[in-house]
């Protein structure tokens, strides 16, 4: 049997960054998404937006270096870039909610067949963090969710219906997990790519809704 690989955090970010088209404005959420800033595909100019009011910033700096007044949503210092702009919260969320950003990349706990997203609260904890999640999941033209395919105990996170409190209804366009890339369409969830060593059947066995296997389904391409 072929050895199975799972994408780690950096590799998931690398795969997600491939989705960014030339000229896209992209919001990167807390966690794995902020890592995407380090993997812009060569030759593409991408504008990153962070909810704390910054657009067009560069890579994350080394820890302890950088300007404390140039932070991303995770509180990490980022490099400035020519063309960068700064603004307040009302403006930042006008940009987010108003549909002015092309892509929002967020972490997730659960995604449903219809593209409902649950990513602000684990029910056992009883307290969640809504933060900018509801606005970000609503506003951007395209929403990409990065998460592990199953929970720590092996339960599917891609479900017919989310069991965790919802962040936003029918908002997700693409899910990139440690073993698959899945597109949410009107017809259902389409399996586009699988991690090295995985078959579509194996991905399906860890996914609750029935996946439509894309005729062109192939191994995840990172470069």
């Amino acid at each position, binding site marked *: 049997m072929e050895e199975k690989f799972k994408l780690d955090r950096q590799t998931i970010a690398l795969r997600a960054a491939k989705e960014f088209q030339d000229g896209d404005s992209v919001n990167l959420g807390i966690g794995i998404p902020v890592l995407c800033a380090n993997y812009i595909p060569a030759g593409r100019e991408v504008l990153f937006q962070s909810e704390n*009011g910054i657009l067009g910033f560069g890579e994350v700096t080394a820890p302890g270096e950088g300007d404390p007044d140039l*932070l991303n949503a995770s509180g990490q210092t980022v490099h400035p870039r020519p063309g960068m702009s*700064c603004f307040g*919260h009302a403006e930042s969320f006008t940009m987010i909610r108003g549909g002015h950003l092309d892509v929002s990349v967020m972490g997730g706990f659960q995604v449903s067949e219809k593209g409902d997203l649950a990513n602000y609260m684990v029910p056992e904890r009883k307290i969640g963090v*809504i933060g900018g999640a509801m606005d970000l999941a*609503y506003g951007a033209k395209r929403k990409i969710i990065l998460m592990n395919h199953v929970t720590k105990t092996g339960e599917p996170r891609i479900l017919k219906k989310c069991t965790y409190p919802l962040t936003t*209804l029918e908002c997700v366009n693409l899910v990139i997990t440690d073993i698959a890339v899945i597109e949410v369409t009107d017809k259902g969830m389409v399996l586009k790519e699988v991690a090295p060593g995985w078959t579509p059947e194996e991905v399906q066995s860890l996914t609750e809704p029935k996946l439509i296997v894309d005729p062109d389904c192939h191994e995840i391409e990172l470069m």
Partner: protein
Amino acid sequence: MPINKIVASFDEAVADIQDGATIMVGGFGTVASCPSLLMEALDRKGVKNLTTISNTTGFGSGVWKLMGYKFAEDMDILVRNGRIKKSIASAPVSAIFENNFEKLLRAGKVELEMVPQGTLAERIRANKAGLGGIYTPVGVGTVVEEGKETKIINGKKYILELPLEADFALIKAHKADRWGNLVYRGSSRTFNETMAGAARVTIAEVDEIVELGELDPEEIVTPSVYVDRVVCRPKEYGGEEEEIDVEAKASHDKFLKRGSA
């Protein structure tokens, strides 16, 4: 008489904030954009039963000191000293460790109203702009919609969100002049700009005070009319060396691990 909104000390700046007041606290969550010395002064004053409107409820100075911040107190100083009755916030707890607000919330000692971040900004802005509320599609079909009026506008469902009133807005800016014109720095505008003028009294903590006319009118972010008081951070800050807080060190390590790798 020349207008002069500059006050001499942080204690003087917060002297009329009474028990039971509703205060807006600017910033995002990271201490760089937080009115840190106003937080300390308000704590020294010993007020109780505050209702706060802010993005987070603070994470404690320990984490920020380890990251090298000189002015390291955030809202946590008010939380841990029992000065808050209710918080209206978008991210009241941390995703990676239990902050003091979460401990008090679990113990039933504080109330919480959690608001999506963009809705929080817009409810604050609505009050600043004299509006009776705003209709937003954010939160439809979620817990946020519960108990609220909704309306279909152009075929789409919106939630009515009401303005947030406050007695004081405590904000952080970079530079001010004696009229109260403000400019900010980098990503530290955050809720500071949004809250300026949204409360009955706006108090701005700044890094530097400049002469009237030194700020380029084209670059002023907060026009003076929104600001009532300006207080400047000292050049030298007498924070003495403290022992490393073990709990803060663990949170800091988690942050670095989660953030950068």
